[in-house]
């Protein structure tokens, strides 16, 4: 892992302007993806995972906007944007234009696979014509060549009778088969990085297993890197090399997959791991994460996880932890570690109020006194 990263994301912030105010869906996000590795991007629904990957492709549009950050990919500057004191957004000169993004990056270098294979295929065009269009755009092949290539790809991702199914429409395919088509699309342009946004969530377990096997097989064959977005820790354990955990737009833990599971640093990650139902456990032991995730509009002060955190102390309400290295190769954003030097140990713990949120002890008492 000493070589230059394939993709480097530095301090990317993406916000949405709504009538109620500004929501930072992705806040100061930084991570690298190395060649041949599969990086997991984990978090609950609404953590900002999907906005993060769309930011990488620069596919954010009004009312959303990437306001700052740098993204480089194999020497291409996908994003170089900073926000001046006046709030004006400025782009660096080396940043690729929209046309260059289209002709150099999207599809050719970085491909995307979405969660819902039905939603991701255009219902009014045949599978073949959609696949062929993407191949034609990105590989400068003639119509006939692109068609031959498309059929070959369909065969490769395990679609039987590829030639006749080429002329069928998405609704004539099963969910698993459609996901295979999407993988074929992703592979069509031989990208070095595939971003998969919860690609197996909509599939049943058997089909999910088949798709994961296919991905493993293709990974060894093409040496493609993956960013695998999911909320399923089981899938993470199976295919990821390193994992990023997101909470409310921020990264809160970064670790190689083994360390993440066995030497978990952040209380949120611990809670995520505990929430996986295990076959040998009874339902009594199953422990969902307490409370619901607040939305980005009303992000809690200090550490954003403090209202739901079992380890929260009063200091967590005021000090916002950034991501720091806790162990070798393992970063976390939690004040309980000494590197933050936040006086965590002397701070009184928070208690759970009637809404299941953690608040300072005295506020709960005063509420109780009113009754």
């Amino acid at each position, binding site marked *: 892992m000493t070589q230059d990263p394939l993709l480097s994301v530095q301090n990317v912030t993406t916000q949405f302007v709504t009538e109620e105010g500004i929501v930072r869906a992705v806040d100061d996000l930084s991570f690298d993806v190395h060649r041949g590795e599969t990086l997991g991007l984990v978090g609950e629904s609404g953590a900002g995972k999907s906005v993060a990957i769309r930011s990488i*492709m620069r596919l954010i549009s*009004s009312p959303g906007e990437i306001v700052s950050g740098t993204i480089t990919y194999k020497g291409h500057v996908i994003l170089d944007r900073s926000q001046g004191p006046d709030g004006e957004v400025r782009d660096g000169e080396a940043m690729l234009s929209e046309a260059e993004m289209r*002709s150099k990056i999207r599809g050719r270098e970085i491909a995307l696979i*979405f969660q819902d294979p039905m*939603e991701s295929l255009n*219902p009014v065009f045949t599978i073949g014509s959609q696949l062929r269009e993407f191949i034609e755009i*990105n590989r400068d092949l003639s119509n006939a060549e692109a068609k031959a290539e498309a059929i070959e790809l369909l065969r490769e991702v395990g679609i039987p009778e590829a030639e006749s199914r080429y002329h069928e429409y998405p609704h004539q395919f099963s969910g698993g088969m459609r996901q295979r088509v999407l993988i074929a699309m992703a592979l069509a342009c031989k990208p070095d990085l595939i971003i998969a946004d919860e690609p197996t969530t909509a599939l049943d377990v058997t089909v999910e297993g088949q798709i994961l096997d296919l991905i493993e097989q293709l990974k060894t064959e093409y040496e493609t890197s993956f960013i695998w977005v999911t909320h399923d820790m089981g899938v993470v354990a199976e295919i990821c090399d390193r994992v990023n955990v997101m909470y409310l737009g921020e990264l809160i833990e970064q670790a190689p997959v083994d360390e993440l599971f066995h030497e978990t640093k952040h209380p949120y990650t611990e809670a995520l791991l505990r929430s996986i139902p295990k076959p040998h456990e009874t339902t009594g032991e199953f422990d969902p994460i307490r409370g619901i995730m607040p939305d980005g509009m009303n992000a809690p002060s200090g550490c954003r996880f403090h209202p739901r955190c079992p380890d929260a102390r009063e200091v967590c309400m005021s000090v916002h932890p950034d991501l720091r290295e806790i162990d070798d190769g393992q970063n976390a954003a939690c004040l309980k570690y000494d590197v933050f030097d936040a006086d965590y140990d002397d701070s009184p713990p928070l208690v759970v109020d009637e809404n299941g949120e953690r608040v300072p002890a005295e506020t709960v008492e005063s509420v109780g006194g009113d009754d």
Partner: protein
Amino acid sequence: MLIGIATITFLLVNAMPGDPVRIMLGPGTDQATIDAVQSRYGLDQPLYERYFNYMAGVAQGDLGNSIHYNGVPVTEKILERLPVTLLLVASSFTLAISMAVPLGAIAARRQNKATDHVSRIIALIGVSTPSFWIGLMLIIVFAYQLNVFPSSGLIMPWAHPSDVPQAANRIEVLGSSLYHLVLPTITLGTLQTAAIMRIQRSSMLEVLNRDYITLAQAYGVSSRTVLRKHALRNAQLPVVTIIGIQLTTALGGAVLTETVFSINGMGTLIITAVESQDYPLIMGVTLFFGVIFVVGVLITDLLYAYLDPRITYGGGDH
């Protein structure tokens, strides 16, 4: 369906008070004459017998004879007026679709920008304005104040030059026809334009948020191609359905528009028929309006099936 329409109109019309024969012949006619005329039109038979006779006639394309127009076959009268109404409805739909589809799509593309706001306000006013009032305003402004378009009448583009004032040849007939069509088309087409525009915008917005659109962009398809190829066809599906439904509004609107512009079409025909209580004519015209609607819906169903591969049969209920 058409049997149903025929039945409904038959029952409605026979519930009408008054006696058309007496109205036609005027007061003071002796009973013998009235009886003679009644039996000529079959009005002396019992209701169920008249119903079966009528339905049998309808099945053979015979809608009976008009009382008001002195026994002219209803079918003949309708076929004389039908092209006028069809021309008016067709031209207003042409206007509506050619305006509404691009405008709605552009509004969706520029959601919450100035273009969008302006077009939404126009569409809102369009669906809130009575068409005949638009007609009156157009007459005031363009026919009276500016004197650029005629305020009444309609000339069929295939009319013979000798029947058209100030027209020497077929080209001039065509020109005159277009010239007369302008104001009625705007009158009848405004509501359709606004209604289709609203659906086009919301449908386009929905489609633009779909994953397959993002995916196409993520594979480097240019935004123009995404809009024109990937989004537009999907967005047309609800629009096609609405166009079918709008047809019934447009046919009703045609009655008002023809009245405002004194055009001799199906609309003014039914008004005349109702005023003179001409049973066969009312039934015939209503039946024909139903036929036009059914044919229109059939066409939109076929179009829908063509646009959406998920529909494999050529029609059905949506």
